[in-house]
């Protein structure tokens, strides 16, 4: 379902916002995209690639602490907000997508954008810190 966000980008829904519990991560498979990981931290939603850049592990099976996700295979750590690689053996950043929540659905732009924190969450149910 295509909507537009505040910046008038076309977005697509990847999952129900209610499907992601606070402090948890949900793996989402969307057509034409690599597997995604949808996180909820302090009421805000974030989306990164689900596949670890160090191996083939699914980060949604990993461990979340302090705003970072730790890969279950080799403990490489990534910043959920920016995708940055934080801890060995992760060295390559995760792709991230800016998130908007529209009508209870977590949405990302149709065109993927890498590496930047959500530029604006105005008018959504998420509040940037």
């Amino acid at each position: 379902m295509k909507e537009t966000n505040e910046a008038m980008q076309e977005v697509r829904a990847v999952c129900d916002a209610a499907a992601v519990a606070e402090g948890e991560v949900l793996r989402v498979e969307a057509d034409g995209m690599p597997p995604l990981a949808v996180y909820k931290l302090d009421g805000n939603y974030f989306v990164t690639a689900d596949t670890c850049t160090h191996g083939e592990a699914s980060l949604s099976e990993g461990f979340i602490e302090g705003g970072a996700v730790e890969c279950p295979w080799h403990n490489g750590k990534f910043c959920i907000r920016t995708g940055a690689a934080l801890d060995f053996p992760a060295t390559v950043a995760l792709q991230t997508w800016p998130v908007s929540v529209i009508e209870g659905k977590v949405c990302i732009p149709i065109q993927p954008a890498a590496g930047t924190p959500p530029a604006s969450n105005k008018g959504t149910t998420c509040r940037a810190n």
Partner: protein
Amino acid sequence: MSTTAETTPQAQAATTVRIAGGPSYSCAPGDTVLRAGLRAGFGLPYECNAGGCGSCKFELIAGSVEDLWVEAPGIRAKERERGRRLGCQSVPRGDCEVKIRLADSYVPQCLPRRFEARYICSRAVTADIREFDFLAPGAASFLPGQYAMLRLTGGGPERAYSMSNQPNAQGLWRFMVRSVAGGKVSTGLFALEAGAEVSIDGPYGIAHLRPTPQRDIVCIAGGSGLAPMVSVINGTLAQPAQGGRDVWLFYGGRGPGDIPRIEEFIHPHPRVRFHPAVSVPELAQGTTWTGEIGMVHELLPRKLPHALADYEYYLAGPPPMIEAVVGTLQTDHGVAAQAIHYDRFF
């Protein structure tokens, strides 16, 4: 309830470990979930075998295990609460069911076993590193770059040391050991008398020499990380199929006393280049040191003729050194993760 590393594990008979959706294997009394699986020939993921890296994490689904090291840094308390354990620190108390992701790359090419070995002799390598020779019955089977766990007779902790020699039919296991102030195992090894026995469990290690005939080899090491590099390099030179590959060894120490006479361990060879560096300039002052001063990885772009991404890398030594170098290789020089084999000495 967990106990300390020094007490004996609970199971007095062999137990069975069943991997959910996969094979089962027998675990001898006192053996760990990880090692028993490797002995049975299964590809359980691991790296350090010492509780530091977390690579051997598994989920305990049924049964109970004793935790050899409750404070092991490789796993968090929260992960334990969710039923995760370290395979290298878990000794089954009875039959268990576990969830472990097996991978072909971890299937041991030489099955690890436990055996006794006799101390023969040793020789100096640097100011605080000696190379020790042990003889065990049967052939010494391992891959260049692997390590084994050594334990002194009479119990006590075990430590991982890399083999510096080549696999051989005579049963010779050769290790380089750094004397550590207050070190329980290194102190005992340095005090061994000829003929004394030690317990060896091995081989282990995933940073072993690979056949990559198209790629030249770069070895980077610090401290007793020299041992696996000596093995990898001599192993490369001994394999005619790998002929033609050039080899670089970058070795870093704090001062000139940390740099060995490398020709005593790797025969001078036109295809091998040795580039040592000392990191503390004050230690080089007033000596005859004419080598590089700085961090070892800074030498790479200056000394290697090709793009760094063209080489196959082997690294061994302290975790911070390895993590910094691997990060630089991947981030700054585009080296693929598959071309880097490292052994972090936790």
